[in-house]
Each structure stands twice: as C-alpha cells, then as structure tokens.
C-alpha cells in the first residue's frame, strides 16, 4: 500500500479541506454531529460526489469512480450485517460478488475467520450474534476483499457504555493485525484519543486541526478544539495580559492574577487543563467550589468566580474544600494556553 491523499474543495457541508492520510494510518475524523465528518467519509466511499476538489487514492483521482470500484471497506454504524445469511456467506459475499473462484473464496474466508476467531460460528445465521462478534464480522467481511482503505462510521455509538471499552480495545487490535489504512468517524473524543494515530478535528464543515492525540490535546489550534478534546474539556477564562515589572501577568478578574510566559498585552482567553490544576494554599488563583463530584479515582471540582466557571480534576486522595468554600490553586506556566479573545485562535 502506498500513500493516499485526498483533497476537497468547498462543499455545502464541507468547506475547503486538505488532508493526506498515510498508508496504514488510523485517522479519526472527530467532531460534533453536523460537522461534516460523515459527508467527508461518504465522499471517500463514493456515496457522494464532491462539488469540487479531488479525492486521490495512491495519487489516482477517484472522482467519478463508482463506489464498487474504489476498493473501499465500509463498516456501517449498525454494521449492516446480512442477517439472513450465515457468517460464512457474509464473509464470502464480496469475493463471490467479484467473481473469485470457489476454492480461492473458501481459502480466504477460512483465513479471515481464523484471524478474527469466527471459525466456530461460520455456519451460524448472523442474526442474533452478539455485538462484538457482529463488529468482527463487519470488519472481516470488508477485510476479506482486501480494500485499499477502511472507513468506519461511528461503529461504537450503538454499543452499551459498559461494553464500549472492550470494543475499543478489540477494534484497535484488529487495526494492528490488518495494518490497514483506516478512517474512523466519531463524535466521542475518548474513542479518537485512545485509538487513532492522528485526529482530524472538524466543526461546521471545517477542518480545524490535524495531529496526534497528544498534539491536539496539548496544543489545540483554537478554543473549539480545546473544549472538545479532553474530559472535561479545557477551562477557558476571560483575561487580560498586562506587563508587570517581573514579567507578564494574566489578569483573570475575580479569579486572580496568574503569571504567563508569552503574549502581548490585551484581551485573551486563558486556557488550562482541569488535570493541570495544582491545589496550593498560596496559589495565585482562587475560585469558589460549586460542586464536588467524586468519581472513584478522581474528584472533579466545579469552580466559579464571577461569571467564569472552570473545573479541576484531582486525585481522590487529595483533600478538597467543601461546596461553597474557596479553592486556591496554582498552574504551571508551561501548561497555560492563550487564545485570541476575538478569533479564538491559539496565540
């Protein structure tokens, strides 16, 4: 497999988008519903034609190539398993459709079934199989025809919360086994963070940022990405940078003043991750605790100062003030991210 690239031009649901996905890469298209991620995926699959711009696989222009000829494996949200057929017939469907001989079909179906541990249930009807087996079957059914690229459309959104972690792990190990290019559409930042090599964050038909999970987490390009990535998302407080004798300081109104490394004077959005809050009785910032949420290993403090709100994620061992009490904390200056108050872009 060589490189594949795809470029889009403006589309009603999708503005100018340029994205190159490397061979064997697992890329997540992440965004809220209506952000254009499904449109993008449907264009890659050929279900929709781009209004302008091009999609290229291995350098070949795919515009006008019918979807059956693109060599795209598609895993649908509800898996779209042919429930009236046996597992074997599902796996063999693509090969038979493409006129592959019987002996060859049997051999390849056998191989893929072995790989996905579907061999014991090959002759069972696909109706009534459990959801993780359906997921394996859906992937196997596409993988057996050796597609150039795999597209997955929110395959975990119908799965029970408690079971999602298991499915995530399984999906990831499948991707490793196949070493195949995968494009994964999701609105769940946790799925994107845990599975993808790179994340493409989208909103309102625009590609906002592309990067590894940690790049996107650590250096969000704008406030949307900052809020969307992370659980909870990044805190953003309205502030004003002023130069002081000892260095730059962000004036955060009711919350206090916090030294920052960079930035020019003026209005900013002052961003910091809830996990990077350090309780410190002498810290420069102070907010009132509105709610204390204890979730096993972690405690989430909901904080307010004036009309600003923020959250802090602490270990459950850390002593925390009660509701209504002030909470004093410090931030590592390296952890602070500043955004332009107007454009909301990272400074």
């Amino acid at each position, binding site marked *: 497999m060589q490189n594949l690239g795809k470029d889009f031009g403006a589309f009603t649901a999708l503005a100018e988008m340029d994205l190159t996905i490397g061979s064997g890469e697992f890329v997540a298209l992440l965004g809220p519903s209506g952000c254009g991620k499904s449109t993008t995926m449907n264009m890659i*699959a050929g*279900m929709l034609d781009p209004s302008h711009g091009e999609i290229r696989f291995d350098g070949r222009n795919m515009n006008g190539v019918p*979807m*059956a*000829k693109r060599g*795209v*494996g*598609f895993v*649908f*949200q*509800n898996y*779209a*398993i*042919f429930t*009236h*057929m046996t597992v074997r017939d599902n796996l063999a*469907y*693509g090969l*038979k*459709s*493409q006129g592959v001989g019987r002996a060859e079909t049997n051999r390849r179906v056998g191989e893929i079934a072995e790989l996905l541990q579907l061999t014991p249930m090959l002759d069972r*009807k696909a*109706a009534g199989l459990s959801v993780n087996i359906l997921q394996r079957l859906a992937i196997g*059914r*596409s993988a057996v*025809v050796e597609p150039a690229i795999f597209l997955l459309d929110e395959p975990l959104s119908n799965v029970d919360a408690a079971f999602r972690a298991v499915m995530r792990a399984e999906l990831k190990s499948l991707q490793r086994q196949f070493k195949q290019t995968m494009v994964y559409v999701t609105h769940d930042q946790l799925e994107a963070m845990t599975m993808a090599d790179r994340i493409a964050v989208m909103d309102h038909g625009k590609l906002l940022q592309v990067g590894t999970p940690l790049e996107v987490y650590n250096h969000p390009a704008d406030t949307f990405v900052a809020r969307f990535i992370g659980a909870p998302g990044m805190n953003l407080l309205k502030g004003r940078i002023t130069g002081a004798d000892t260095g730059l300081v962000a004036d955060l109104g009711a919350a206090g003043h916090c030294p920052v490394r960079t930035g020019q004077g003026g209005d900013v959005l002052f961003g910091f991750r809830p996990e990077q809050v350090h309780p410190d009785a002498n810290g420069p910032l102070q907010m009132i605790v509105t709610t204390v949420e204890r979730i096993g290993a972690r405690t989430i403090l909901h904080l307010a100062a004036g009309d600003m709100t923020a959250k802090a994620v602490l270990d459950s061992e850390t002593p925390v003030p009660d509701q209504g009490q002030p909470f004093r904390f410090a931030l590592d200056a390296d952890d602070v991210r500043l955004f332009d108050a107007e454009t909301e872009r990272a400074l």
Partner: protein
Amino acid sequence: MTDMTTDTLPDDAGDETALHGGAEERKLGFWLTLPAQLLVLFIALFPILMQVYISLTDWSPLDGIPWYQAYELWIGLLNYVDLANDPRFWSAMWRTCIVMAICVPVQFFLGLGLAILFVDDFRGKRVLYSTILVPMMVVPAVAGYMFFMLFQSGGPVNDILSFFAGRPVTIAWLSDPDLALFATIVSDIWQWTPLMFLILLAGMVSVPQDQQMAAVLLGASWTRRFFTIVLPRMKTIIIIAIAIRVIENFKVFDNFYIMTGGGPGVATETISIYIYKVTQQELIWGYVAAIALAILITLSVVSALAIKKLRGAQQ
C-alpha cells in the same frame, strides 16, 4: 398518580410477562373476557356448524320446513359423494386453478417489476403511483362492466387491433370459450396487480438501505444484490402477498359474472360462480353447503401451508 400516561418501562428481566401481569392477573383476565370470547367463538363457528349440518341433508328452502328441521331430510354423506362425481364442480375447480395459476404469477411479476421501478425516485413518480393504484379502488362490479364494454366485438379492444392490423378485426372475445376466459383473466390482472405492487413495494422499501449499500461497496452487481439481499429479505412479504391473492382468487366473482355470466356455456365458470348458480338457480342448499365446506377445507390447507412457509421464512 404516576406519570404512566404514555409509555412503559424499558427492558429488564421478564418484561414481556411483566407488562401483561403475573399468572394471577392473567387468570383474572381470562375469566373477565370469557363471555366476550364465547360470543366471538359462537359468531365465528355458528355459520360453519350450520353448513356442516345442512350439508348432511337434502334441505332446500323450497321444501317448506325450517332449516333446523332439516334432519328430516337426512341423507348422510350423499352430497359429498355426489360432489366427488360432479363433473361441473371439478371443471369449475380446475378452471379456478387455471385462473389462479395464470393470474397470481403474472400479478406477482408485474407487481415486482413496478415495485423495482418505484423504489427509486424519478420525475412524476407520485402521479404515476396514484394512477397505478386506481384499478384497485374500482368496485369489482364496475370493473367487470368496463371490461365487458372493452371486449365487445365492436369495442375498443377490437378497434385498436383493427388499427394495427390495418383491417377490421371482429374477435368475439366474450362468446368464444377460450377467449372469454382470457378476457376475464385480463380483467383480474388489471384490477389486482396494484395490490400486489403495493405490498411488494412496501416490502422492498423496508429492506435496510445500509445493507444494500454494504453490498455495493463489496462489489456486488445490481442483479446479485437483488437476488441475495433484496429478495431474501422480502420473503415474508412475498409469501403474504401470494397467499392473499391465491385465497382471493377462489373468490373471484363480480367481474367474471358481469362479463360473461360464467359462459359461454361453463367456459368461465369459476367455483364461486358455480356455487352462486347452484344456490340461486337450482336451490339445492344441502349440496351448496357441501361445496362450500369442500372449498373451506381447501383454503384452510392453502393458508396452513402459507403460514408454515411464513414461519420458516421468519425462523
């Protein structure tokens, strides 16, 4: 009170039974509805039991004795013996089967073809759709009259044929025994293909779109998709559609009777027309009851087979 105005609780252990009450409640429900159930049973069974009773007698309304005293004319199974040896009954039965054997497949394939066309969008689809459904809504007697007019020897059918043949065509559609059956069959197909179309279209639309899309992405051609995904998923609805038409075909009467009156001779005499004639013209009701029961049994067997198939299709 609790907010149980519109919904039930979501699933948990034993919900099916839970929503319909425990064993005790079910018992109470049985006793409370018993009178109503008995009434329904009586209404359903009474005519059949009466038929069985009459069929074992030689009763006729002309005999001047009430039907419940028909035992005075008890003849045992003689009506059934007569029926077995009645060539007119067997030929009516045979004719009904021929009509069915032609009508049902033709209606099925026409309906399926139309459904395939209508499953995708095209210009003017809505207008055409309404037009196609019109025949179904025409009262069968009126349809019979329409076709009676169409197939007159000086009627529009012959006019059109004359136009194409370039010479006057005067086929006696309704007085030639073979052609009369053909003409009546055409009217039945005209009237009932829309129903078949409607049922099959509903079935076709309900085939999940993403499954068809998945098949396309796996490289399946249209025909392969149709035969491996669409048709198998329509199995249930196809069985229902065919069963409805098979059973209905035993009942064809109105348009046949109006077009040909069962004639010429007995050339278009289906089982319904035969029964009507025996009842109204010959008034041997004991015999009619025997015929009716014979048909009821036949239809029951057909329905039972269809239901069995249906269960198989749904597993």
